[in-house]
């Protein structure tokens, strides 16, 4: 019996966005990542072109975080003491991109400073040739204070600057414009809010080829289904030709998954939760892999083992060999 494969005819596709600049483009990166370009639903190669597989990034901090799971501390060990060492370890573990998150304070509780932020970024840039995302601590005033110098420090490298939110995006977009970078536009799980912020950023003069959207992720068991469905709707809208939804998507399953009790706590939890380490790793990996099917273009992960497992998924979706 012959069956006709039901293919959707899409009017649009996801915009291609390039992060990082090699020497030829005035930077020092050894490679560039290209996102997007999909003319089909996630991983359905029979339907249309999928030129760029999802990118796996590792989250690195400017200093060793105080509240990360001991399992993560064990995995990265001494490298966590220095953002350059950490980034190098991440590259060795197979990361294709570094996601550097700046802290609010230093280890003594002193406020982070522009000078320290610059140093952290410089260390990471020098330590690896991977393209880079840098995000602020997430408080408008401090973000702006730190991220402008960061943008200057990385001038020419075409890094992704975050995080633009509805209430605070102007300074960051201006810094991206002045220093030839890209921005990450984050909205809370809502298709229209996502479009609106892209429009606002674009209106400031930043080309759409320099915007990556973060539709916001919930961890497995803690609201993942909301983000999952918003991502599916964004991707469907993109393929249907709605221009302002055609940005590649970055999501942070590592951060979300490692925050929840299932990953954080090893003792005094129900026996039915199973072995702590395997459960934690599964929590991150299942959160992350589910988002791949909803259309994630960059997965930001925390544990090297998750990176390895997701590598298997991404490769297997592309070419099962």
């Amino acid at each position, binding site marked *: 019996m012959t069956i006709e494969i*039901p293919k959707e005819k899409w009017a649009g596709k996801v915009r291609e966005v390039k992060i990082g600049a090699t020497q030829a483009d005035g930077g020092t990166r050894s490679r560039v990542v290209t996102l997007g370009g999909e003319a089909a639903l996630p991983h359905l190669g029979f339907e249309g072109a999928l030129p760029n597989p999802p990118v796996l990034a590792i989250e690195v901090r400017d200093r060793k975080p105080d509240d990360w799971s001991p399992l993560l501390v064990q995995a990265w060990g001494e490298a966590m003491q220095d953002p350059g060492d950490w980034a190098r370890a991440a590259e060795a573990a197979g990361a294709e991109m570094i996601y550097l998150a700046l802290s609010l304070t230093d280890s003594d509780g002193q406020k982070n400073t522009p000078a320290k932020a610059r140093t952290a970024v410089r260390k990471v840039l020098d330590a690896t040739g991977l393209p880079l995302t840098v995000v602020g601590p997430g408080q408008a005033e401090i973000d702006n204070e730190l991220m402008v110098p960061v943008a200057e420090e990385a001038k020419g490298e075409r890094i992704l600057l975050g995080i633009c939110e509805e209430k605070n995006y102007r300074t960051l977009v201006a810094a991206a414009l002045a220093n030839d970078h890209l921005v990450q536009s984050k909205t809370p799980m809502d298709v229209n809010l996502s479009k609106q912020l892209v429009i606002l950023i674009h209106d400031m003069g930043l080309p759409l080829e320099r915007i990556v959207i973060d539709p916001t992720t919930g961890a497995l068991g803690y609201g993942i289904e909301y983000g999952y469905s918003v991502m599916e709707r964004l991707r469907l809208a993109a393929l249907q030709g709605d221009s302002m939804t055609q940005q590649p998507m970055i999501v942070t399953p590592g951060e979300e998954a490692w925050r929840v009790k299932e990953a954080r706590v090893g003792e005094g939890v129900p026996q*039915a*939760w*199973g072995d702590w380490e395997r459960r934690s790793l599964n929590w991150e990996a299942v959160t992350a892999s589910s988002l791949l*099917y909803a259309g994630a273009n960059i997965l930001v992960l925390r544990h090297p083992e998750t990176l390895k497992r997701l590598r298997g*998924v991404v490769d297997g*979706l592309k070419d099962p060999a």
Partner: protein
Amino acid sequence: MALTGLEIYKLLPQTNCKECGYPTCLAFAMKLAAKQAELKACPYVTEEAKVKLEAASSPPMRLIEIGPADHRLQVGNETVLFRHEKTFYHRPGLFWRLRDTEKPDDLKKKVAEADAYQVDYVGIDLTLDGFAIEAASGDPKTYSAAVAAVRAASQKPLILIVTSPELAKAGLEAAGDSRPLLHAATAENWQAMAELAKSAKVPLAASAPDLEALAALTENLTKAGLEDLVLDPGVANYRDSLEQLTIARRLALRKNFRPLGFPVITFPGAAGADETLLAAEHIAKYAGFIVLDTFDPASLYPLLVLRQNIYTDPQKPIQVQPGLYEINSPKPDSPVMVTTNFSITYFAVANEVEGSGWPAWLVVADAEGMSVLTAWAAGKFDAERIAKSIKGLGIDQKVSHRKVLIPGHVAVLSGELEEELPGWQILVGPREAVDISGYLKAMWTN
């Protein structure tokens, strides 16, 4: 695909004889279209019309039920490709595969342990759905003993994995009236398997290397009189399963393609894949039965939660009744805390407090089923609402103090709340529920 009233009318005798109880054939047709009447009420429909109408009125993907009457598992009958379009209805069954090459006593022990497995997720009990028993020995007697052993240890639904009619027969006999799923009919053995499934009245899985062969096989089985079928396209990696399962689902739902209008069974551990992650794909994208080779709570728990999340109705957040919840038999001097009625939020807090041993009064405000920050951002968890809950529940009668703990994420509310609740002291708790016990230890004094 449902027919309109007019389309149905064209297939009726159009004599308006009224025997169906309706004044005209058209009136009856309208009722049929609205699924408020049954076709058999008209004694005069032709056989041809009957076939057409029945085909059009049956769902595009068949509902399959397996297991004993009091442990029924329903799978299939899905109506959409994306959960946001409506919802996914029937959660895929998660099964654990065992082989008859193990001794019956060992099987019993393993099955009893897995049968008892139960994990609480936001007040919902999640469990494994059943067991698949593979006739790996090739010997009918051994197989029959294995199936009997599993049945002795569990009431849950079974899947019988057999390659020959002899083994199928042995398995079905041992399974008795427990309505197992028989796996699988192939191009070679389908006639015999069909006979067995038919006389035992059990659903039958059809297995073929690709969708075309599979559709041909299910057509044959349908012609042989079988209605309850399950598809096994033999997918073994991330890409093939996503593609094949998507194509099957699209053909069934969008094209009303009957030969593939059945739920799919997958074996994510089969090809040495990362079983947890391949199973996760199958949960998100379209499997009906998922047979695991490993039973590991550290993997099963996240998979069960994923399944719960993906199959939640997007229209209704899971929520608990607003009100006053007493945890660990609180006394007048026990702490009072406020949270929202989003299930995930409520259980995160309630489980934490309960586990810590602290007696407490937990005020669950009506935040329309939203998390703390979502509700706050949406104006459903503001000082006024919190104050209303506290006043409405008569807590001042129950406690001897006037202190209320609010979630750290909404610290900004404390000023307003003090105004709304004169005489009460507002304490700002930690941001995450995990830290409540530590906070109380350090801060709660009477």
